[in-house]
């Protein structure tokens, strides 16, 4: 029998050719879906691609119409790229390594609107609450007291019931202890024993009786003193608590005044109210994208490691490579970004999740000159994961001569602020080492034409603040972000604070004093009854303590008297206890 079927060889090649043709027809769609799926899983919001086009000779890929949804704002694209084109290293691709020497990214636009939502999950809430929005109007005291939990009322109520409970407990205990009658009985017993003894036998009997009496009194005195000490400690504790509770109304008044009424202190930080929300939002956004970028970082190990795949697809065991090559590497990406002022060009170097292998961080550098309404801008930075456990990132963003035109700082609310015209220079420096975040923003605005407040404003503070701000021609702003990436704080200082403090400070102080007085009266009236009850109960406890002290004193005196009457002082017979 012939074992070779030569016609089969021809059939094999025909089948392979057909399969390859089908593969080539469908591969663009497969790549498109792969990029969309992988990108969506990394970003946490829809990543969409209009078209992917693979060319075999030379091996390269062109992507058209890439849209990356902003996870925090699903109706907007964080980035849109018109065209991305690159050539790939075919040999490395066979080894499942994507190596791109140079990539061209053109037609990049930032923060563009989307036709449909790109959300795949509910957007995560911002890491920071917006700074408290100051309404510049003082609310009604009754309404404030209705919705606020007052420490003073809570403390006074608790204290009243606890002191009452303890007073009852001690009164009951006092009744069960030796009282005046019992002490009188001891005195009578003492009188009976202390008569004259003549014979040695009588002397010993008398001494024995006195010692027995003294022991009985000592036992009772011990009980009385133990309770007296307990009552004393409790009374002392409650005295402190009463004093603390008495101070609570003042603390409540201070807290609520700061919360609901503008104070001089609050005025000092108004720039945080105006600018803080925006700076928090920008910082959170940068940190969110940094977190997304970290998702693709991988730690290369010189030991075999098991990379678990989804169920049914086993696990890939990675072994050390003799000449390690990153799974994914773009050596250089040339990027051209369209912003309303013109085009900004830049480059991103060594984009990879395996920086440990390349030994080089991702570096980016963008700059633009001769832009419309902007003298110059530059952005440089580095994402360094070369030592994965010691991440180091930095970025510096400088803008010079940015001409402001109708920029609305706060639209709604009580004090709308808009810059009609002006010139701004600003720089941002940000560093993240491990988890420690340290960033600073310095801005100088000049030649301002500022519109603040409403024309028909009736609130005196808002009117004063609006007028003062409208006269501002320039100011400086310094913001410092400090802390960890999960928990950071923001400090902002600005010349605006001084302007507002001077212009509207008096109005604020007057209004705040009025609110404070009303609040204080209301809280004190609510707290007075339970607090006075608590004080009365405490006074009863103090009375119990006095009573116990007196009994203890009487018993001590009696013990002393008995000891004096023991005539065998200094006389010791072996075997006797005295």
């Amino acid at each position, binding site marked *: *029998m*012939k*074992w*070779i*079927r*030569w016609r*089969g*060889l021809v*059939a*094999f090649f025909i*089948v*392979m050719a057909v399969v390859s043709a089908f593969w080539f027809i469908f591969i663009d769609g497969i790549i498109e879906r792969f990029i969309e799926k992988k990108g969506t899983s990394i970003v946490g919001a829809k990543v969409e691609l209009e078209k992917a086009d693979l060319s075999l000779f030379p091996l390269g890929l062109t992507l058209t119409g890439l849209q990356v949804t902003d996870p925090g704002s699903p109706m907007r694209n964080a980035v849109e790229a018109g065209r991305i084109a690159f050539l790939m290293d075919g*040999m490395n691709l*066979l*080894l*499942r390594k994507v190596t791109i020497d140079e990539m061209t990214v053109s037609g990049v636009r930032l923060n563009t609107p989307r036709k449909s939502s790109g959300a795949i999950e509910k957007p995560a809430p911002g890491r920071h609450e917006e700074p408290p929005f100051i309404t510049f109007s003082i609310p009604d005291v009754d309404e404030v007291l209705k919705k606020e939990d007052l420490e003073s009322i809570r403390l006074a109520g608790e204290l009243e019931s606890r002191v009452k409970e303890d007073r009852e407990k001690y009164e009951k205990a006092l009744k069960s202890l030796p009282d005046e009658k019992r002490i009188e009985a001891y005195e009578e017993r003492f009188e009976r024993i202390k008569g004259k003894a003549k014979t040695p036998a009588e002397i010993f009997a008398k001494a024995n009786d006195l010692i027995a009496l003294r022991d009985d009194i000592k036992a009772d005195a011990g009980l009385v003193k133990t309770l007296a000490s307990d009552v004393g400690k409790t009374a002392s504790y409650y005295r402190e608590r009463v004093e603390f509770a008495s101070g609570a109304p003042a603390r409540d008044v201070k807290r609520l005044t700061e919360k609901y009424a503008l104070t001089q202190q609050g005025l000092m930080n108004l720039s945080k109210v105006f600018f803080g929300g925006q700076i928090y939002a920008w910082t959170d956004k940068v940190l969110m994208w940094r977190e997304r970028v970290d998702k693709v970082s991988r730690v290369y190990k010189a030991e*075999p490691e*098991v990379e678990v*795949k989804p169920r*049914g*697809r*086993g*696990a*890939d*065991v*990675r*072994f*050390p*490579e*003799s*000449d390690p090559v990153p799974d994914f590497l773009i050596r250089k990406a040339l990027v051209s970004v369209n912003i309303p002022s013109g085009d900004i060009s830049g480059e991103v170097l060594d984009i990879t999740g395996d920086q440990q292998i390349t030994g080089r961080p991702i570096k980016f550098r963008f700059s633009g000159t001769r832009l419309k309404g902007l003298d110059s801008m530059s952005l440089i930075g580095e994402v360094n994961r070369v030592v994965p456990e010691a991440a180091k990132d930095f970025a510096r963003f400088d803008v010079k001569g940015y001409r402001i035109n109708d920029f609305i700082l706060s639209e709604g609310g009580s004090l709308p602020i808009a810059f009609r015209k002006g010139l701004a220079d600003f720089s941002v420096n940000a560093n993240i080492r491990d988890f420690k975040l340290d960033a600073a923003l310095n801005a100088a605005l000049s030649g301002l034409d500022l519109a603040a407040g409403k024309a028909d404003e009736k609130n005196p503070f808002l009117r004063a603040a609006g007028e003062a701000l409208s006269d501002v021609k320039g100011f400086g702003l310094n913001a410092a972000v400090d802390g960890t990436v999960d928990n950071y704080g923001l400090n902002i200082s600005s010349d605006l604070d001084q302007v507002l403090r001077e212009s509207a400070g008096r109005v604020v102080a007057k209004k705040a004093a009025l609110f404070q007085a009303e609040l204080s009266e209301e809280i004190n009236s609510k707290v007075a009854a339970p607090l006075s009850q608590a004080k009365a109960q405490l006074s009863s406890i103090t009375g119990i303590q006095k009573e116990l002290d007196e009994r203890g004193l009487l018993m001590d005196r009696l013990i002393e008297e008995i000891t004096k009457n023991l005539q065998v002082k200094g006389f010791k017979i072996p075997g006797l206890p005295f």
Partner: protein
Amino acid sequence: MINSIAKLLSILNSGTDPSQISLGFAFAMVAGLTPFFGVHNLVVFLLVMVLRVNLSAFILGTAFFSALAYGLDPLFHVMGLKLLTWDAMRGVWTDMYNTSIFKVARFNNTIFMGSIVFSVLLFVPFVLAGNLLIRKYRKHILSYVEKTRIVQAWKATGMYRMYQSYRDLRSRL
């Protein structure tokens, strides 16, 4: 299901050499149990086409073993993981990992490693046992099977008549 059994019986009852049938099933075992889209299966297909292997047995067997593989994947994963993390073999695996052809074949995947070792180890015993069983079947059971209703029903179908015509045509060529 009945159709598959009938097809199997048809293959077994045909005059094809038992080695061709058992080889077809053995290659099907490799192609079906291992991950289907892999470079190794190109080699399997090439061998199936070039060697005079029974194609019907291969196609039927591939379908059967592919279904079986779903149930056996956890076993292959455990086997593959043991082999790939076996210290004694670490040097070999590392060398293979640094060789393009093996890396392209994705030998470092636990299911691939488990299933390929399993199917290759069983390949020769499977062929030998297959040969033996087919011969025994033809000698002792064939005449009985020919009379069973399922075979009678199969022979009455259009597909069988078409298959017969095809066989006649091939014998004349």
